[in-house]
């Protein structure tokens, strides 16, 4: 994937996470910030994040791949999404 597209994807996911899951305006979310293990996104909410990714990128992520580790940072999520793009 081209770097521009990659950065756009990261920004899109990061902005979505901030908008939907972070209540405190002062919290900084980077592409490496742990999301699940930090408790910012809990395991129940992870399902809505999965639906967002599937809708936005027109992909289907198998339940076995939607693990807390795969969702634990924007970078991890981008890597996961890339596995299923163009499949």
């Amino acid at each position, binding site marked *: 994937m081209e770097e521009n597209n990659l950065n756009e994807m990261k920004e899109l996911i990061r902005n979505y996470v901030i908008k939907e899951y972070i209540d405190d305006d002062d919290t900084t979310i980077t592409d490496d910030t742990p999301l699940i293990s*930090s408790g910012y996104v809990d395991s129940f909410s992870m399902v809505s994040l999965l639906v967002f990714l599937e809708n936005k990128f027109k992909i289907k992520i198998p339940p076995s791949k939607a693990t807390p580790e795969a969702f634990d940072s924007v970078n991890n999520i981008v890597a996961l999404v890339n596995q299923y793009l163009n499949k």
Partner: protein
Amino acid sequence: MLSEHPSYEELTRDFSWSIAEKELEYTPGDIINIGWHCSDRICHKGKADKIALYYEGFGGTRKQYTFNDIRLAGNTIGAFLLSQGIAESDRVCLFMDRIPELYLSFLGILKIGAIVQPLFSAFGDESLFVRLDNAETRAVITQKKHLSKVRKIRSSLPKLEFVIIVDNVKPSELEPGEILFSLENAEPVEKFEIAPTRAETHSLLHYTSGTTGQPKGVKHVHYSIMSQYLTTKWVLDLRDDDIYWCTADPGWVTGTSYGIIGPWSLGVTQCVLDTGFSAQAWYRFIENYKITVWYSAPTAIRSLMKAGDELVKEFDLSSLRHLASVGEPLNSEAVIWSGRVFGKQFHDTFWQTETGSIMITNFPGMKIKPGSMGKTFPGITGAVLDPVTFTPIGEPGKAGLIAFRPGWPAMMRTYWRNEEKYREKFVNGWYLSGDRSSIDNEGYYWFMGRDDDVINTGGHLVSPFEVESALLEHPAVGESGVTSKPDEINMEVVKAFITLKPGFTAGPDLELEIMNFIRKKLSPLAMPQAIEFMDTLPKTRSGKIMRRVLHAREWGEEIGDISTLEND
């Protein structure tokens, strides 16, 4: 290793709650205060310097507190609350993550004779509002990260006078009625006059969900400590040198009965891990703190199973001595798995917000039957009742309603301002739990499911009524029916069936929008994990949505009598 205590049979034969009264040095009629018993009393017994709490937060933040530290902290917080004019019987809500201030404020509130109202910090603003409004809560103690949810509803809560923030907010950012309180900067209060609470003085107000109506506040009293003390000692088998970890959040009853009162009334060291779930982090936590007794939940255990056996081998978990579980039925595979990978089987326990303490359990030293909840705790009279006659079923293996004879110390005293609902929980002198099971010929209980529509997801009860009501507030939703669907990890999760108002089109974007709408309004637990858009919902001729039909469809069950189903 078998329990150090006498056998289940011996304890049952000789049982009296006076055993707990004697060990806690309580004489009926005396002052009794959970805050004092969990801190000052332990110090008086020579354990002031013993660690009461090891805390680890995200990013490796570590703190530790001795029993003298928690005594002082409870005094200091209590004195601060009194200085604000908060008085006995006022409801003070704890709306925080599992940070030390949560545990320490719990003691402080009780020490002044006020009532603790713990609420899960992931609750959305609607869930928070309903519970604060019902309790007429006077103060909320919270963190900056949750302040926006409180601010959103503040103007609709005239009884809420104080919002106390325990972390970093610039004073210039505070709104009227908001107060900063930093335990670290406060002058420790050495001498403090404990409120003269008695056995029947209210202590806690936990909220629980029902099939219909709004959540109910379950009122507990200070005397509940008798049940919590003895069940912690005998069922969780806590001993003086144990390092204990209860993984429950104090927003729920397990997190207070067995995440605060039980271990601290025994003077036992406990650990708190305040991070999101990760199998690695949990195993590392057990290894680092050499945890000996671990009280967790089936959902977590199944998540650990999913992470695999190999991961377990990367950690030294040999400190573990006793494992127990609560929240939902523990499947036999999980019991067998834990025996294989940890060398210890999880002991399932059954109880509820209303019962306040463990009622049915696989007692230490007693044969575990994987998949069974075990037997009633000594002193508890239980039965499964015929659902028509409400009399005990004598036939082994036959399903009925789990019921208990009231009278144990931690039994709820009423539902907050809802005496009618409270009375409905009793028939023929039995307290009806709302769960179904059978009893085998050796007296073991086997869970069979809820007796109502309440959804038990990951060990937490969700009211379908509450979700349906919230769904109707979304502009696109015409009608809604909510039930559960099977889930490998959480046993069941919320599923919503929806008809749309004219002008709206079903689709994945709308599905996500509705999911997030409920997540923020109620909580992530209540968020439908699946939404099905329908042209019509199954209804009775009188127009009531038949959840039973939706449930049967999801679970592949017989629909049963549909003679009242509306003809399309």
